[in-house]
């Protein structure tokens, strides 16, 4: 291609193609449910709408070129340089090349200062009752909300739990403990806060690694960790599970 052709491409066709590219990416995120790795459930439909809209805007611009009979040269001097357009290609390329993953324990470790204190204020996922008979359908966040409402650990002793989350190894815990964790997000991945419940397990029987996704079944008991009596899960079983569609807790 000659130089003027390249320029013409950059100035005329790159903008609508970028819009269509970003729009298609949003639609792909929506239909593959990958969008849940990035934003909170309530915002998912917005990405669908903006995806469709961006594709429309791009197509309208292309149609515009097709029906417009103006000279092809006059546009070059009048728009911003192509640098910002090229800069916009980068995120798109990254987004397509790197397979998106949920946030990991590395980030959780940076943010664990307020661990669990945050979660009490998020919306409960199920109606919680202190007197429920089946307690295995409660999620990590449900339990933490209960623990915050009523911190007396004796209330929870002996209750059955089934929790799925990722493994976070916490250096402040004894070696036969890990945290079964989730990130709570209120908007997007930028505001994720980790929550977790300590699990006591037998390292000889089960091998676990940070960031493995597991389903922990067991019973709540009370352990003294760092001079603090707190509810912990005594694990009966630790099963590896695939990363759920929505890896965060809202």
């Amino acid at each position, binding site marked *: 291609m000659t130089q003027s052709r390249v320029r013409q491409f950059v100035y005329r066709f790159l903008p609508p193609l970028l819009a269509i590219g970003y729009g298609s990416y949003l639609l792909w995120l929506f239909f593959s449910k990958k*969008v849940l790795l990035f*934003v909170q459930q309530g915002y998912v439909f917005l990405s669908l709408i903006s995806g469709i809209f961006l594709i429309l805007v791009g197509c309208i611009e292309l149609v515009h070129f097709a029906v417009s009979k103006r000279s092809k040269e006059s546009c070059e001097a009048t728009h911003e340089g192509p640098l910002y357009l090229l800069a*916009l290609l980068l*995120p798109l390329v990254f987004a397509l090349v790197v397979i*998106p993953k949920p946030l990991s324990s590395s*980030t959780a470790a940076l943010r664990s200062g307020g661990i669990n204190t945050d979660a*009490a*204020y998020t919306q409960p996922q199920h109606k919680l009752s202190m007197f429920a008979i089946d307690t295995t359908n409660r999620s990590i966040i449900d339990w933490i909300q209960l623990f915050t409402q009523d911190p007396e650990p004796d209330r929870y002793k002996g209750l059955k739990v089934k929790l799925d989350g990722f493994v976070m190894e916490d250096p402040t815990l004894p070696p036969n403990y890990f945290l079964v964790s989730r990130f709570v997000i209120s908007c997007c991945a930028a505001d994720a806060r980790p929550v977790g419940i300590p699990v006591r397990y037998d390292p000889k029987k089960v091998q676990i690694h940070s960031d493995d996704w597991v389903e922990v079944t067991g019973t709540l008991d009370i352990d003294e960790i760092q001079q603090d009596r707190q509810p912990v899960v005594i694990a009966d079983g630790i099963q590896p599970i695939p990363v759920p569609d929505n890896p965060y807790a809202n």
Partner: protein
Amino acid sequence: MFNFANQFNDALTIFLGIIVQAIPFLLLGVLVSAALAHFVKEEYLLKLIPKNRFLAVLVACGLGFLFPVCECGNVPVARRFIQKGVSPAVALTFLLSAPALNPVVIFATWSAFSHQPEVLWFRILFTFLIACGVGLLFSFHPHPEKLLVNKDFFTKETAACDCFHGKHSSKFFAFFNTVLHEFLEMLSILAFGAFLASILQVIVPRDLLLIIGKGPILSVIVMIAFAFLLSVCANVDAFIALSYSNLFTVGSLVAFLTFGPMIDLKSLFLFKTTYTWRTVGFVALLVLLLTLLLCFGLNVFLY
């Protein structure tokens, strides 16, 4: 527990999180701006804004209720105001106030802090005071056009350029052409801010902030730093502040909710599309000092 692969991945997830979250709001802002450009006559807009600088600034503070755009979407709208003849100082007041003083954000803050309504009241009051104060100060600038990057940044697109969107193309195509170009321009800047924010988020330990963040003075400073780094949308920042409400002083929560929507990593770069670095720096510094002062006062004298 730390490894580079994880950090890279998390940075990318945070980066795309901010982008995916911001795109709808950015689009909304760009749509409002393009509608203003193509369907609203200058006179209507200027009639809305009084001649008197005090009244003008007051009205600008309320414009967020007419144009409920958050800090991702308000820059194209403010830029369009300036192009339509609104003074840069009044547009600045709009830029600073609209992200927090609009029905969506007020409702979100109210629902998050219904148990602590003073947080909402002080957020509204402080945002109002700071936005008006800064706008008023800049309205005394002898050469307001010097505040701007390029006082005719739009003329080249709407008038001088006759390639596609000049007098020959229909309003329909012109409207979508503006939407497209403005969206891409804003997105590229947003992407840069989001990039910086995501890198910092996987490097800076938040514990550190929380540990030093005790006491009436330090907590305010920490929450301001936090708001700056986090760069989250004003629509949801109340829920994030909420998660720290038991750890932090009232003044620091108000500081987070007041400073964040006005100035953060991504909005600084967005401001730069309209105002010079000098102006942006000065505004950021002023907002910082005023927020510190007001929130220190709140902590020391009231709580």
